[in-house]
């Protein structure tokens, strides 16, 4: 019997099915942190890729299409990683790494490397590394029991820390894009129209 997996005939769990989960999936703590932080970094990578891609639409459409495609892939990989551990983490790590590299490549070719590109590169590299570590960390199979008690709140706190760190890096990158330059100050949003920076 595989570690943590039941194997029954008809009506019983399929081999390879993960054990019943509680509040959080049953995975080692380190792998949990790497996976959730990597996923948050992945969402940030996707946002920066989309913002930089939107910037290039007018003057470098081929580069824009590439970046927007990478953005969609990064966001998808991040969402899958948030859903739980699995073999998709390795592919997700590759997607994020390629996304960061794509930003660096486009920035170099178009001579537009700036804070946004650096932010996206860092997010993509960190996200890829973290997802790869998460995949490796959970390769030995899930623990016998899902976390309970104080561990539930503890893991929630860790998720919050990772989310805020990723948000800080992402916001810095987004603010450095053309969209950031035209951003409406918070509090000035209105119905059907807002002021914008010059």
């Amino acid at each position, binding site marked *: 019997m595989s570690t943590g997996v*039941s194997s029954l005939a*008809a*009506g*019983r*769990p*399929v081999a390879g*099915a993960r*054990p*019943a*989960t*509680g*509040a*959080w*999936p049953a995975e080692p703590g380190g792998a949990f942190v790497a996976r*959730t932080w990597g*996923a*948050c970094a992945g*969402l940030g990578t996707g*946002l920066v890729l*989309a*913002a930089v891609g*939107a910037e290039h639409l007018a003057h470098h459409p081929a580069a824009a299409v590439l970046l927007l495609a990478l953005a969609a892939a990064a966001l998808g990989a991040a*969402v899958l990683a*948030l*859903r*739980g551990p699995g073999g998709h983490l390795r592919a997700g790590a590759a997607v994020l790494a390629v996304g960061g590299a794509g930003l660096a490549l486009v920035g170099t070719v178009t001579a537009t490397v700036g804070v946004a590109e650096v932010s996206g590169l860092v997010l993509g590299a960190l996200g890829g590394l973290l997802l790869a570590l998460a995949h490796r960390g959970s390769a030995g199979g899930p623990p016998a029991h899902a976390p309970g008690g104080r561990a*539930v709140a503890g*893991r*929630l706190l860790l*998720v919050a820390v*990772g*989310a*805020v760190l*990723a*948000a*800080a890096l*992402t*916001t810095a990158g*987004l*603010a450095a*894009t*053309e*969209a*950031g*330059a*035209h*951003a*409406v*100050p*918070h*509090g*000035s*949003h*209105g*119905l*059907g*129209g*807002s*002021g*914008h920076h010059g």
Partner: protein
Amino acid sequence: MTQSPNRLVATVFGAVYLLVGLLGFTVTGGVPFVGQEGNPLIVFEVNPLHNIVHLLIGAALLASSRRVSSAKGMNTTVGAVYLLVGIVGLFIIGSSANILALNGADNVLHLGSALILLAVGLGADKGTARARTV
């Protein structure tokens, strides 16, 4: 409730948004409903429309927090909507529909909140004693 990250997040975020929405009205007296300039509430600039949005989000999250399934759905929805609005907004920056705000410290908090909501909505409380069967 403390054993469900989704119920916990929905409760805490719902209460905070409600509080921010209510307190916002104490500083937006005289501010036009959809004014171009807001008044600061601690580090956030708000206007009456913002306060109402905060109240609605807070009420929705709190109302959903009584059950795991509804809290999970609401957390995912609010987080996803925020993310999608952010992405769509990247392509309408020159239009009158632009509401995007990407460059304030408060947006770290907003984006961080969206990431937390998505993380718990997608990744936590994924099922009790249920397993796939043939």
